């Protein structure tokens, strides 16, 4: 039972972080389908940091540096989306999809190259971080507490405050709803959209490192992040682009994802003799059902997906 709660919380954390990223980007008016690729890049940045940072660094700073590396990778990678979609007005769906494909592929190639350079016989795309991982975890009795749970709560509060209580948030959301109106009162729409996309890169990168630290101590980059970026988009839509509702819907999805990892501890579930794949499929099936049922009521930012062109007023 404790295990289920633990996994629910950690998977929800990933979903919350990434969905908040999507939320910032979409509120600025850019659909970020590239979250999947951004997560991979964030995971790569964090994993490389864990590979190369001396383990002697005190826990707090170690964690901080790994997070910063993940954020940096996410932000830099998301700037590709920003350049293409904001400055060059490319189709956001296509660029996002390209980022996803590029993300996993580039990370795999890079890690393989690093591994082969160290040892000619090693052609795997794995990075292991057994020791570093311990710095992210504290034990409260049987409960394996992961610092990402705290980070997520902070990130959630920050997102809420920034969106609804600050000047920046008001202007950001105006750009996603009615960029011409924002422009007419002197707001630089391009700048705000850049900000939205880069913030989504930061959140997505954090989500990526959180994801690979959730269960395992070794990550094979060929796997990408198994559709978690898309799941996060579903969470965002189900959460109506609002941070507090995103948190709740992430818990729902996180719960079903966690069930896939932990169902064996529940006797009645084991007795049903369903193949384990059924449980692994759960979050994705749930997302299909939830979106099918709720999408007719959902209210996305009005101008999302439409490149802003100053000359077309």
């Amino acid at each position: 039972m404790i295990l289920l709660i633990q996994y629910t919380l950690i998977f929800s954390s990933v979903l919350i972080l990434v969905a908040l990223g999507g939320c910032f980007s979409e509120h600025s008016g850019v659909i970020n389908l590239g979250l999947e690729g951004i997560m991979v890049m964030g995971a790569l940045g964090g994993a490389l940091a864990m590979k190369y940072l001396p383990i002697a660094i005190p826990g707090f700073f170690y964690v901080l540096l790994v997070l910063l590396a993940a954020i940096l990778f996410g932000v830099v990678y998301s700037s590709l989306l920003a350049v293409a979609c904001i400055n060059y007005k490319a189709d956001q769906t296509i660029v996002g999809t390209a980022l996803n494909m590029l993300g996993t592929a580039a990370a795999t190639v890079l890690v393989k190259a690093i591994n082969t350079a160290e040892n000619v016989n090693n052609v795997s795309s794995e990075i292991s971080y057994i020791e570093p991982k311990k710095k992210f975890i504290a034990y409260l009795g049987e409960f394996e507490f992961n610092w990402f749970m705290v980070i997520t709560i902070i990130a959630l509060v920050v997102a809420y405050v920034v969106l609804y209580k600050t000047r920046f948030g008001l202007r950001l959301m105006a750009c996603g709803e009615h960029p011409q109106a924002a422009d007419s009162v002197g707001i630089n729409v391009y700048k705000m959209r850049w900000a939205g996309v880069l913030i989504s890169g930061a959140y997505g990168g954090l989500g990526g490192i959180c994801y690979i630290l959730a269960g395992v101590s070794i990550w094979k980059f060929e796997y990408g992040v198994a559709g978690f970026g898309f799941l996060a988009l579903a969470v965002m839509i189900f959460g109506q682009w609002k941070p507090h509702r995103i948190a709740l819907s992430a818990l729902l999805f996180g719960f079903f994802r966690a069930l896939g990892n932990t169902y064996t501890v529940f006797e009645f579930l084991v007795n049903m003799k369903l193949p384990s794949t059924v449980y692994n499929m759960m979050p994705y099936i749930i997302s299909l059902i939830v979106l099918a049922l709720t999408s007719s009521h959902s209210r996305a930012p009005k101008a999302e997906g439409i490149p802003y062109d100053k000359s077309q007023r």
Partner: protein
Amino acid sequence: MAEQYAIEMLNITKRFPGIVANDNITLQLRKGEIHALLGENGAGKSTLMSVLFGLYQPEEGVIKKDGVEVQIKDPNDANALGIGMVHQHFKLVECFSVLDNIILGVEPTNHGFLQKDIARKKVLALSEKYGLKVEPDAKIEDITVGMQQRTEILKMLYRDNEILIFDEPTAVLTPQEITELMQIMKNLAAEGKSILFISHKLAEIMAVSDRCTVLRKGKCIGTVETAKTNIEELSAMMVGRNVNFHVEKKPMTPGNVVLEIDNMTVASKIHKNNAVKNVSLKVRQGEIVCIAGIDGNGQTEFVHGLAGLDPLVSGKIFLEGKDVSKASIRQKSILGMSHIPEDRHKHGLVLDYTLEDNLVLQTYFTDEFTDKLGFLKRDAIRNYAEKIIEEYDVRSGQGPITIARSMSGGNQQKAIVGREIEKAPELLIAVQPTRGLDVGAIEYIHKQLVAQRDAGKAVLLVSLELDEVLDVSDRILVMYEGEIVGEFDPKKTTQEELGLYMAGAKRMEVKA
């Protein structure tokens, strides 16, 4: 000593490729006056205001504020100089509150955190001072168009703007709201604000402005004191000839019923309620029936249901006695229904097709234009297009092979009118057929509608313009929130009376 002006635009010339949009125009706005800018579409009013607002840079000429020359490179410069504008299409974020929209861009903050209490006090004080009633916490999407406009005005006042530009502000308002707006504008001028009022509605200009500058084809025709002129003179200045405002009509001689609608209900695409509720009406040969109402009261859905663009929830439609409630658009077209749509770009034309292809959109499959093997008879299409172009005076760069997108709005509309009338319909549905057109084109289209009526056809006109409603129609039905709430004889009613019904203040039982 020369007179002190709030804004002077001196000898402004702005060229676009192939056209001089503003040719040596001078406009001087006195402090505290309401100055109207009058002209047909394409006369250069918008270009001139865009120059003042920093959206375009003029090739020649200078702008002076309080006698000092200034450079206005973008809207931010204009804002900094105290120039504010209420755009024709409001620039409001629909899911934000009134207050958020007003402060957007100039938010009072403390370390980046919004201080809405301070903003609210200022907005309430301004709203009190100028009689601009708004609900600060209501969302834009939930409030009336009138309140949205007051929000836009408050946006300018909140920024302490001294020069206020109103771009066609009355187009979206009811007669009562227009009266209210006029009063607000007078209050603002009395408080020392200088107002530029763009319009092509002469009555409003006469009612509210102190002076009026008239533009025609990019040139400045002159500036006159409103008190020393009259509507006829202004219109002659605007169009360059005398315009006949009143449509000449013979008494009507109604014949058989062509269209009968029985309890028609149409769903809304925006909300869950029905947009059109149990509407019944009849249109006879030789009469023009007009559906009047404020925009968004179900007229669009009514026409979509009638023309077959949207399905009916319930009810029946009879065209010449045949039940066409479930007939396809093509069937209805063949049976004699013609439709001049509200949105000519969305439903009227394929913008990237040539003019000739657009003219046979509903008839290309007939034997006249398609041979037995299924190939188009291009020659026949060309001849047909040339005939319509000739008869309806559709002007375009390359004749039949002009791409529709490149034509002016008025000529696009003439092409549609020509196409729909040439089909020799029994019923002509015309939805806001003169929207966005200039006086000359409006006069022409009104004549065509009356000609159809005199030829014994049934005409159903949907219009938001009360002048048009009263002038053209033989019978007026007022639609409010999807229901017919009043029936009037245009000779025995007034704008004010219609306004009360359009705003939902009064209603009567109407039997089809």
